């Protein structure tokens, strides 16, 4: 008997997917904001694992480097600069929370139904296994050079804006 490689890949996918969704749900349920942030890290790191399985290794590294290394630290920093009221309920009013959950569930059902019933043509049976770093680099500087520049300008604007807004007067 030979265990096919796809089964291992599938096991990895389900593990990471379950971790990502569990992290996201715990993020919402957690009473403590710091715990929410830690659960968000779990979600982001698991999404990185999913990226690897879907054949995007460069993107997985970027995901970990930027999200965990920068965005999460930034969020935790903001968390510590704004002392939280532990007493106050973190959730909105029950009505708003329930209606929010219903809306989200509805959107999930509709999109799931759509994407399951759609006939996807021209798709492969398994994710492509090519080295992506070089191709992404080349396409960033040829096909997508304009979006790339716009993103750079956006970064600059965001950086200056953040400094201006958060500066103590």
């Amino acid at each position: 008997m030979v265990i096919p490689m796809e089964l291992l890949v599938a096991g990895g996918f389900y593990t990471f997917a379950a971790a990502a969704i569990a992290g996201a749900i715990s993020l919402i349920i957690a009473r403590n904001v710091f715990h929410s942030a830690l659960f968000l890290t779990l979600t982001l790191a698991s999404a990185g694992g999913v990226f690897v399985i879907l054949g995007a290794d460069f993107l997985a590294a970027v995901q970990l480097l930027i999200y965990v290394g920068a965005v999460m630290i930034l969020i935790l920093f903001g968390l510590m600069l704004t002392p939280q009221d532990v007493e106050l309920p973190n959730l909105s009013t029950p009505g708003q929370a329930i209606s929010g959950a219903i809306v989200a569930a509805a959107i999930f059902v509709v999109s799931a139904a759509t994407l399951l019933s759609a006939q996807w043509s021209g798709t492969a049976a398994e994710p492509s296994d090519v080295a992506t770093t070089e191709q992404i680099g080349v396409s960033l500087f040829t096909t997508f050079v304009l979006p790339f520049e716009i993103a750079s300008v956006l970064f600059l604007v965001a950086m200056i804006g953040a400094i201006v807004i958060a500066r103590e007067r």
Partner: protein
Amino acid sequence: MSFLSCPFPALVCNPFGLARDGIYGLLAAIVPEPLPTVALTVLGIAMLIAIIALTVMSQVWVERRAVAFLQERLGPNRVGPAGVLQSVADVLKLLLKEDLIPFKADRATFVVAPLVVLVPSLSVWSLIPWGPGLAIADVNVGILLVLAIGSFTTLGILAAGWASANKYSLLGGMRVAAQLISYEVPLVVSALVPVLWAGTASLQGIIESQATVWNVFVLPVGPIAFLVFLIAGIAEVNRSPFDLPEAESEIVAGFHTEYSGMRFALFFLAEYSNSLAIGALAAVLFLGGWQGPILPPYVWLFFKAYAVFLILVWIRGTLPRLRYDQLMHFGWKVALPISLVTLGATAVLVSAVQGTAA
């Protein structure tokens, strides 16, 4: 698997090769295909962790003796010949020390935080190649992944500082966050210089591109990038003179103020493992990795990593701790511009070289 620059029989270059093949043959006879590979990988990881733990114990002793030497002292010399068993005694003591969890602490986070620090610092080692084909995982985005995994450490330290419910711990955690955000950028940018030079982000590829000349000797960018990488690396692993997160003269023991016994030892282990990992990374990126004459490759990489670690110890024994604003100033206004200029210059050089070659 090619053994390009190894002048020895394959057994010497890859001492685990024979054992690996034997175990693989044994397992393959019993269980179906992917399982032997998985089992071997797990075995390799376990061996690596054991080696790293032993190395860390040697590092602690070497550091204490070296700092003593720098300060004209003797250093630990009572347990075992020249005190080599000192770390064994330390570990034994820390293992049996009471494990305190403060009453107000956030229990779950407090318990998990040291593991969040330790696990990435050990996982980094699975990506570092010890010789041609001698790495647990050789991925083509190696350098990015190493740095990405390394940044998890910050998160664990921040969580530890927050979970301790102690003002000093929190301050230490905040300092770690600010410091690592500042020094992560120069670290990554200066690590990209060898990537540009080699034309690949795979650690094996970077090492193989240094077959004729080490990156640190590639004038004029090599030495500068190496220096920036080393400084940012010291800041990244929170060692003196950048050990502000645990500055005892200001904030008691920083993020690990409330940690005792084995949990504290885990932080300790992670810090030393990270120091050696920075050494290994510097060796891979700038010092030719496992390449070197006569000796087998893994010995060369170990020597180089340990040499960089000794430089770290030397710096620790020489320089006083920086002030916080000096640290920030240096990170953003000195290290970052220098590394960016170096990267730009490298890009120009690489395209000029490629232009003349074409």
